[in-house]
């Protein structure tokens, strides 16, 4: 870490697509030429003002950016310590941060002349965002979604179908996000010539982790400017939930070289990190391995077989994490913690009650960590947590855990 203080934390990845030892391009030969041409195309777009002009226009007029930076006054009062701000990316069109990235990738796909878009989705937020942008541009869209997630995220499945996407339930493995990603890769390798794979997180082969981070960095850029305006200084702590880690990378990246800012990523602790892998905390409970095109921390057994994660939140239910997070973890620039289902559910309810905001289960994990640390911090300590998605999609899951019968129109508790 000492040496790194003289260098930027924002210069990665290197030419091999590595952040330290993490990242890379671990894909079959069939995909390699495509990944190289995607990298070339992205490098061109990055410095092309017309590309960013198109992005800025859509971000402003289609997505509704900038999203507000909101001072959560009652929550702050309730916790009795640090000042809590929320970056309101749940107010974006489609209800989450996912669309920031999808727009970038779809514009790239159009520049590359691709006519068919595929995506994987866990909670369905990335699938909905992809289906939305495809509808807007008249592109064919196929979304792979684990069969288990199709059941627990039925509203999003219906949304995707309304938007004209074909949703393919994936039954291999345990039917969650990891398996959806495998089948999306199998589709891609088969339809390599006309198809663009729109990855929803900061994972996969280079250049995806860097490209998705760059598109999501709008979150952190805005938050920084908004905080300077609101408080005239940088925040002390920034916090975001992590499945693959795209909303977190988006918030963190513009702050990486601001050494005074504490950076905390919150993984899904499921039923608890020490209980037989019933969690998705790759950094807390995993070790480095190679999956889905990159080297990163993974949940795996002694033989290098990948384990299925578990979380109440379908969007965090992934046994890996973006490679840049693995690197930030190893160099110590960011700290990673985990939050259990139970803690996230408590945060979910507190947020509803104190702020009138129904958060998604994913940012509820980040909020739960805010609840842990804010009371111990001084009142002039400023926290930004990323409210990366809204909870409409999760009300059925939460109702079930709280024993509330949604089919009962009287609204009584299930065991009344």
């Amino acid at each position, binding site marked *: 870490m000492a040496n790194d203080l003289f260098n930027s934390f924002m210069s990665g990845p290197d030419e091999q697509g590595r952040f330290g030892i993490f990242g890379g391009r671990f894909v*079959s030969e069939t995909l390699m030429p495509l990944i190289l041409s995607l990298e070339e195309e992205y490098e061109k777009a990055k410095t092309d003002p017309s590309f960013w002009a198109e992005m800025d226009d859509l971000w402003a007029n289609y997505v509704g950016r900038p999203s507000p930076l909101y001072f959560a006054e009652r929550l702050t009062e309730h916790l009795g310590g640090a000042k809590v701000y929320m970056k309101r990316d749940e107010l974006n069109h489609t209800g989450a941060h996912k669309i920031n990235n999808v727009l970038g990738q779809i514009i790239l796909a159009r520049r590359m002349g691709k006519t068919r878009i595929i995506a994987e989705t866990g909670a369905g937020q990335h699938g909905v965002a992809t289906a939305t942008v495809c509808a807007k541009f008249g592109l064919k869209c196929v979304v792979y979604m684990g069969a288990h997630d199709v059941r627990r995220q039925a509203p999003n499945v219906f949304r995707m179908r309304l938007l004209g996407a074909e949703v393919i339930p994936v039954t*291999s493995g345990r039917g969650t996000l990891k398996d959806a990603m495998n089948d999306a890769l199998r589709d891609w390798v088969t339809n390599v010539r006309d198809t663009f794979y729109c990855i929803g997180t900061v994972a996969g082969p280079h250049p995806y982790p860097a490209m998705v981070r760059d598109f999501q960095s709008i979150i952190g850029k805005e938050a920084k400017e908004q905080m300077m305006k609101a408080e005239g200084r940088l925040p002390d702590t920034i916090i975001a939930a992590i499945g693959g880690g795209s909303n977190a990378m988006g918030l963190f990246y513009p702050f990486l070289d601001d050494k005074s800012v504490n950076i905390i990523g919150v993984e899904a602790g499921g039923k608890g990190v020490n209980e037989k892998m019933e969690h998705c905390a790759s950094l807390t409970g995993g070790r480095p391995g190679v999956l889905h095109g990159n080297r990163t921390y993974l949940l795996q057994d002694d033989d290098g077989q990948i384990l299925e994660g578990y979380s109440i939140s379908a969007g965090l239910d992934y046994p890996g994490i973006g490679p840049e997070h693995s690197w930030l973890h190893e160099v110590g620039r960011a700290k990673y913690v985990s939050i259990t289902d139970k803690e996230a559910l408590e945060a979910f309810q507190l947020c509803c009650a104190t702020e009138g905001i129904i958060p998604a289960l994913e940012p509820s994990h980040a909020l739960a960590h805010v609840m842990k640390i804010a009371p111990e911090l001084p009142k002039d300590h400023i926290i930004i947590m990323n409210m990366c998605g809204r909870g409409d999609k999760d009300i059925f899951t939460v109702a079930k855990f709280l024993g509330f019968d949604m089919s009962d129109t009287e609204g009584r508790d299930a065991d009344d």
Partner: protein
Amino acid sequence: MTRIDAKFAELNAQGKKAFVSYVMAGDPDFDTSLELVKGLPGAGVDVIELGLPFTDPMADGPTIQLAGQRALDGGMTLQRTLDLATEFRKTDGITPIVMMGYYNPIYSRGVGRFLADAKAAGIDGLIVVDLPPEEDAELCLPAQAAGLNFIRLATPTTDDKRLPRVLQNTSGFVYYVSITGITGSAEAQATDVGPEVARIKAATDLPVIVGFGINTPEKSRAIASVADGAVVGSAIVAQIGAGKPVAEVLAFVKTLSDGAHSA
């Protein structure tokens, strides 16, 4: 010279095409799988590809995915796969074995330790699907240094500009993937494959073997006639998946190898 090099030199001297078969180690269980592998040379198999089971086989279709799951459910591991090769080598010192799979189990064991163990178990070559030339430093170069062949996949998307890079650190043979797709999906067409094989052969002295989408004796013959040999995987694995006895599977393999050898 590895057993692979020796085998191709022998086939070349006889003017014969190679027949390569793929089976998943430990499918449906260790003992049945060992019995099957031991029977392969007698069924006309020139090179054995031994699948290393992995939870997330991203380049494989349902047939081989399920085979991997059966093997893992039966307690198969990388160590047991090496054990299987060791057992096979007690009765056959000539037939080359190529281990085929994905990188993570190997990386998890540690590359140095894996290469030493693989060599000791009598493995001759490696095909690791998710290690393109861009990642040669990971395993390809250390494997060559340890005396194992590293067999590279070339595909229909490997254009002329990229081909030299793909061939550069390849040894043993070149595995041409006949289709863009996963194992056991579309059917390979000899008319498409012929010119592609010729293109690769113009750039290398290594034998070019064609796999993916070959599932009948006729196809085996047609593809082998335009290449140095043919690989069959899913069609054989499907028979194991259907619960066919080993003798019956081997009889099917014999028809496939006869196809390639008559080319």
